[in-house]
């Protein structure tokens, strides 16, 4: 086994892993604010890509304008989803909420199929397709965009949760909703915020990978599951450990496909998920009762 091969596996793994991480953080933000796993998270990834496509092709916007529009449109869908499906619920038990998010994801996917059709669509890359060589391995400029945007989003997240009033309020909700409500935090608004943030993040993930992977109405399913794995490995934290979880998952998948067999690629992800759930349900890095945000 040559060094450049291992390097290529690792680089490919890191770039898919960064996407898993972004989607995973979306899962954990909502989980921390509401205590539910939002299984519709993957659909926002899909919406991000497809809205970008619509902005480019039907509204004829340039790429730099299409991207914010697409993020805004997906976020709007996220808000509507929270407002129409999550908030009106009389008995918000976790199991009811989880089933609603699954139903919501099927609905969103179905609508997307009607709007955009069943075909796969291509989205142009941000800055060309000339490969960049790194010591025998190659990556595309789009990969650099993925790494950079992931880093920025994580940094912004950190600032938001630790240095702004509303971020601190959201953390308060995750510690104890009732107490947060008693000190005057509008818990419902925080829940709405969590949906806004995570749908926007999902959309960003969808937009930055669309040039590499193409996009279609059903891309959200698998990406959502992988993002969920990343969040589980990271112990549902919305910080660094989910990012490491995502990167780890991407690299293991890529190494597994390259060194063992490509037939077991998805199996590797789900075996890791099961092992973590069995032996370390608090996540790979968490203490049993750690802070979650």
């Amino acid at each position, binding site marked *: 086994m040559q060094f450049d091969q291992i390097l290529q596996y690792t680089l490919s793994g890191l770039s*898919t892993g960064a996407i898993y991480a972004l989607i995973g953080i979306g899962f954990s933000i909502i989980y921390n604010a509401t205590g539910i796993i939002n299984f519709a998270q993957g659909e926002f990834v899909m919406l991000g890509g497809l809205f970008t496509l619509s902005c480019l092709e039907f509204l004829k916007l340039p790429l730099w304008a299409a991207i914010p529009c697409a993020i805004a449109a997906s976020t709007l869908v996220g808000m509507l989803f929270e407002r129409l499906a999550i908030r009106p619920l009389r008995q918000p038990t976790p199991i009811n909420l989880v089933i609603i998010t699954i139903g919501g994801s099927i609905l969103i996917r179905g609508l997307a199929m009607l709007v955009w059709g069943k075909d796969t*669509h291509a989205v142009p890359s941000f800055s060309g397709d000339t490969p960049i060589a790194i010591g025998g391995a190659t990556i595309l400029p789009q990969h650099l965009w993925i790494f950079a945007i992931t880093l920025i989003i994580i940094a912004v997240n950190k600032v938001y949760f630790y240095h702004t009033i509303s971020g601190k309020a959201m953390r308060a909700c995750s510690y104890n909703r009732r107490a947060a409500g008693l000190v005057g935090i509008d818990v419902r608004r925080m829940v709405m915020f969590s949906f806004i943030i995570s749908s926007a993040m999902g959309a960003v993930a969808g937009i930055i990978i669309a040039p590499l992977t193409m996009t279609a109405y059903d891309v959200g399913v698998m990406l959502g599951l992988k993002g969920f794995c990343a969040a589980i490995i990271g112990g549902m934290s919305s910080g660094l450990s989910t990012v490491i979880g995502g990167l780890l998952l991407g690299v293991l998948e*890529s190494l597994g496909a390259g060194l063992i067999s*490509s037939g077991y690629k998805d199996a590797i992800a789900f075996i890791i998920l099961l092992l973590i759930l069995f032996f370390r349900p608090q996540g790979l890095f968490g203490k049993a009762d750690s802070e979650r945000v």
Partner: protein
Amino acid sequence: MKKMSLLFSSICLSLVCATVSFASGSIRIGALFAVTGPASFLGEPEKKTLELLVKETNEKGGINGQKLEAVIYDTGGDATKAVQLATKLIKDDKVSIILGPSTTGESMAVIPVVEKWKIPMISCAAGIKITDPVKHWVFKTPANDHIAAEKILNYMASKKQKSIALLTVTDGFGASGREQIKALAKKKGFVIVADEVYGPKDTDMTAQLTKIRGIKPDAIICWGTNPGPAVITKNVKQLGLKTPLYMSHGVASKKYIELASADSAEGIMLPAGKLAIYDALPKSDAQYKLLKGYDQTYKKTYGTEASTFGGYAYDAFLLATSAIKKSGSTPEKIRAGIEQTKKLVSISGVFTMTPKDHNGLDLTAFEMVKIVKGDWSLIK
């Protein structure tokens, strides 16, 4: 009493009239297509094509003075429903022939029904099991996968490429292609040096390709339908892989070039059905006129391009009607007529049926093409 006899005779008369009109009035063609559901990309163009053709034929006065009447049912891609509807077509609608079903699963389920009731069926599904072994009443129009595979291997042999790396998708299409290529490669003296797979929804295949790059095969054969092959094409470009890359006939549409981008797809070779590439065919090609006519009429009527899948229904219709023209419209005569088909120029190829071959297509059904500047160009 007189009244009664009058009534009786009028009933008799009307009955006679009814039978007469049935005999000379119309020929009923049954069709089972998956118009909705997961296989609707097959069934929808098939249904549209059949409706178009029936209308056209009737406007020209039908076949041997008899009008055609199509009874089309939507199976939703469900084998159980297909069986029920096939029985309904035979017993209630009394059709003389069944066109379809659209998928291999449904076709296999319907075969026992048509064999039992002795009604000919022309399946529009690609699975090799449908006509191998040959069933008395069953035909099919799409060419078998192994013809496409053989086309690639023959071309590779002419270029003295010996070792193959396989990269196939883990669904029915990929699994079938993988088996066919392996069997053929062994027979023709090729060596399979890598046998990699990918999932239909995978977003990055650089790991598999990096492994293949380390093995240094003479050529890579990728077997799948979009979007996988488009991702692979981009990954190959990213890795700077110079090994010749062959795709299957599953991506023989402009959509593939659009997804992979013309730049990345430059130089990729694949066997293509002639409908996808009729622009590139020489005008002297036997199928050229028919292909152009079909594509243009379809575009005019429905506003979208004709697809290979609609072409399967076109083939089935043409096989059925030319058999009726030649031999007559009872099920047995139609069956015999289809089996005697000789050099029938149609969409998927030129059909020649025999009692041992109920598909009737050979290597000429595909052309090897290369993608040059975002368009097809024939490889000589």
